[in-house]
């Protein structure tokens, strides 16, 4: 009886976990892939993240399941990067630096409609991870500042300034790669 009871309980837990965590599978993979920048590594990280999430599932108290899962995915990515490619994390950006705003000094407009998706992808991959992650979460996953601040464990003000600086850098990277293309 007790054997059957705990079997059922365990099956229940797995089913509950799947119902809550699997709908965010695409988002989890996308975030992991953008953070570790490699197909195979992203697959390993996602699997590890789901196993971790399953172990921590007892601590999940309902609420925003996507933020809960993506927090674990992001942490797993950082742990993985620290262990395997710590150089990518070794130069933290300075959040106090004031480069917030929009560049109006450069009148050249980029017509992004005409930009090759490949170029945008390349430019995004070149961004430092701190900017890359907030951009991915905001633009691709459509997460709010509040959610990004929870997932990234950052103050909202930092989320806002990293987004602004990230966009500015992305724009500059794109402009320069487009100029290069035009020359070729």
């Amino acid at each position, binding site marked *: 009886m007790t054997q059957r009871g705990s079997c059922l309980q365990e099956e229940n837990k*797995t089913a509950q976990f799947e119902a809550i965590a*699997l709908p965010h599978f695409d988002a989890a993979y996308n975030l992991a892939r953008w953070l570790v920048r490699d197909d195979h590594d992203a*697959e390993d990280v996602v699997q590890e993240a789901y196993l971790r999430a*399953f172990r*921590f599932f007892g601590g999940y108290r309902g609420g925003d399941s996507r933020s809960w899962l993506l927090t674990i995915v992001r942490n797993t990515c950082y742990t993985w990067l620290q262990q395997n490619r710590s150089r990518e994390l070794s130069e933290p950006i300075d959040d106090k630096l004031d480069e*917030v705003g*929009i560049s*109006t000094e450069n009148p050249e407009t980029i*017509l992004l409609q005409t930009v090759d998706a490949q170029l*945008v992808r390349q430019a995004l991959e070149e961004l430092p991870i701190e900017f890359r992650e907030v951009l991915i979460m905001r633009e691709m996953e459509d997460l709010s500042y509040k959610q990004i601040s929870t997932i990234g464990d950052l103050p909202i003000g930092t989320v806002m300034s990293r987004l602004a600086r990230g966009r500015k850098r992305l724009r500059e990277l794109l402009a320069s790669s487009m100029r290069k293309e035009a020359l070729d």
Partner: protein
Amino acid sequence: MICQESRNLIHPYLDGELDLVRSLEIEAHLKDCQTCAQAYNELRSLHSAVSDTAMRFKPPAALRNRVRSAVRNEGGVMNRSLRLSWRWIIPAVSLAVLVIVALSLLALLSRPSTNDLKAQEIVSSHVRSLMEKHLTDVPSSDQHTVKPWFDGRLDFSPPVKDLASAGFSLVGGRLDYIGNRPVAALVYQHRQHYINVFVWPSTGASDASGRAFVRQGYNLINWSNSGMNYWAISDLNLAELQQFVQLLQKDSAAVRFQIRMSNNAREDHFSVSNLCTESTAHET
């Protein structure tokens, strides 16, 4: 609205994070100011380029199943052990008892590894707090600002002391997460060195004698008293960190302070002279 203001607000405006009044102000400004309007359009096209679904990475079809079965395996570990037939129960139980006895003996003989794990977690948190420029959530050298800040954020109230007079100035406090629970992190500075003190309610008995660890070049001291568990970590040398810990402990009741090196190879018990004289007076 002036351009400077609009430049600060244009991102939250684009992201739909502004309140109605501010949004209307920005809209009005964008109608009037061509430079800002152009910048806004650029941001919008940047947004649509990045948010395009072509930009997303799709997981390979097999991965979902792989992850699923990994999770089920993990969940099934307990099941399978429960399905053992009766024939195996008695040997299994005796084996389990043997293993438990052996393990407890081992645990008695060697340093408990939970402390090592905890120490590792403490080091990671310390390093992270310095790395991400995210040292404090509440930057303040006033203990009466830092202590109340934790109210409502934690289910306990950590003791906060300012030791500036002794050269250890309070920098602020931070919420952190250690051992699957939210904890208070108090940040002190001594010359150029930062000290993180992690505090959470302890479950075990009070043990004011400190244990010192060395991990990745950082010195750690762990102790507990008055129902709280403490970990202090810094790149300070051990002697100065000890001095700091003594100051923190100073007017608490349990003051016997001993440092034991966690390295199994050398385990020297030495007590700190001035504290010991104090402690003998207090000790029951």
